[in-house]
């Protein structure tokens, strides 16, 4: 297991560096922009004007709370960062094993005395670890931006709570993409479908506040259960966190069972016959 994790981490170095730099830059800007906004009466007037002239628009983005650090973070950071890191999660989940299978390298790795279980969970733990590292980079970068900001201050441990909530949601999309990669003939299809669900979840959750017809749909949208400002103010809702972690584990367990039972391709993408066979294998039960 250690060797699998070590080499999987090695091949994730690029992703950690690339995504880490991007996410860190985004987080570091937050403090400076907040100081700029609260120090500008004109900016505050614009926000107030939005609340009068375009109340729906102001409500979606919660403009009324933007003059507080928590409200600012909620509106300007957590409104879109989950979508960005979510795209990393779907890509990582879909690639967990399917990338090596399509690249033809899985065949030779599995010809070594490493069990499918070890490989699966080794890779899964690595991807989980990389996700945690990216979230910690974001968290630490926000803390860094607070050190040179006059107004942008949130206690470090409180700031960790929305990232904890985000972790459970990201793992949902990651394990969903992983499961789809076990079911669908190609990794890109799994990634695309999971990413589409992520984007759909993002817009349904965002718009459900002003479009009544989307309220029911929002109940089924994972991002609805992402706690950001509420987690900082009232603490993390451990029930929803636990539910999502449980769903993540179930999706991972089903994927693991499917990986145990499937034929490993020599390389390349599969065909739709592959989907039919995988559904039959899944139907036969764990």
């Amino acid at each position: 297991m250690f060797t699998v994790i070590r080499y999987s981490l090695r091949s994730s170095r690029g992703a950690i560096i690339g995504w880490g730099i991007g996410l860190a830059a985004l987080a570091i800007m937050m403090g400076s922009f907040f100081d700029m906004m609260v120090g500008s009466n004109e900016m505050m007037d614009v926000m107030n004007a939005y609340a009068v002239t375009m109340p729906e628009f102001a409500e979606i983005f919660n403009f009324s709370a933007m003059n507080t650090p928590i409200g600012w973070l909620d509106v300007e950071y957590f409104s879109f960062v989950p979508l960005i890191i979510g795209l990393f999660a779907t890509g990582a989940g879909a690639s967990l094993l399917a990338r090596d299978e399509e690249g033809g390298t899985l065949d030779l790795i599995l010809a070594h005395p490493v069990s499918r279980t070890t490989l699966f969970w080794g890779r899964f733990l690595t991807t989980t670890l990389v996700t945690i590292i990216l979230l910690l980079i974001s968290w630490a970068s926000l803390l860094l931006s607070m050190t040179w900001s006059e107004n942008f201050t949130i206690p470090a441990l409180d700031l960790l709570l929305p990232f904890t909530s985000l972790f459970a949601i990201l793992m949902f999309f990651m394990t969903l993409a992983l499961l789809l990669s076990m079911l669908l003939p190609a990794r890109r299809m799994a990634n695309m479908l999971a990413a589409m669900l992520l984007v759909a979840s993002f817009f349904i959750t965002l718009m459900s506040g002003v479009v009544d017809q989307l309220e029911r749909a929002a109940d089924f949208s994972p991002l609805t259960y992402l706690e950001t400002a509420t987690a900082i103010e009232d603490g993390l809702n451990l029930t929803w966190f636990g539910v999502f972690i449980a769903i993540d584990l179930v999706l991972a367990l089903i994927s693991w069972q499917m990986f145990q039972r499937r034929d490993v391709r020599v390389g390349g993408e599969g065909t739709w016959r592959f989907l039919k066979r995988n559904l039959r294998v899944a139907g036969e039960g764990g």
Partner: protein
Amino acid sequence: MNEFAITIDGLEKYYGSFKALHGVDLKAKRGEILGFLGPNGAGKTTTIRCMLDLIHPQGGTISVLGLNPQAEPEAIKARVGYLPGELHLDENMTAQQIFRYFNRLRGNRSNWDYIEELSDRLKLELKTPIKNFSHGNKQKVGVVQALMHRPELVLLDEPTGGLDPLMQQEVLRMLAEAQDNGVTVFFSSHIISEVQAVADRVAVIREGKIVEVAETASLLHRSMRQVRIRFQQPTEAEELFKLPGVELIAKDDDLGVLLQVEGDMDALIKTLAKYPVNDFETERTSLEEIFLAYYEGEEDK
């Protein structure tokens, strides 16, 4: 200890509705080199991958080194070296990094001096990234990783593909040396000459079914031969052509005949003794011609 390193009985494998293996029966003796011949799509790779539990058969049984691949895949893989027919390696790693990675997956069982010795013999540059390697150099990495842990059994799918003739010879020498050390070598190929050169026995697979398993020498021995006879004077040797297994191919002139003889030569030689013969030339069919004969039969169907 079981006499056989590999025992396969009635192996069946489907890909959807396509039946790739129709009940393969095959045994490889411990310490032998068994050549596995067949054209593309005949079932060679599928058979090998079933032995390593990379794919799951729908019928039949397999025993590799006395173990069932479905029940104890890791125990088998610890004792087997494998070279896939379509070798893909992590392009960002060097050969050295790949050997270290695979060695760690095997619990650091390989001796690094031995890895360097094998690499030197194949003139393999260890510190060059795989992405800068030619197909032949990648194949050398594949050969080394299959042999580096001194396995009891090596399963090689087209081991010399992409190698130049000198390196092909070196790989065949390595296999022969492995055999001298008690290793069982099972390798598929459609380069007939290399199978003929090193294999003790040959198995021929056609449309997912084994159609022939025989010692290479015996297969060659009992195969067709062409016999060219030149008589001292014009001769009507009709009785020669009526012998069992003898067929007249051509008459050069009144003095020369070209015959095709299947099986034993005894009757032909004894009958020929009655005639004044000036010259007698015999040419044994190559394994390639035998192999092609199986497939010509298939195409005729």
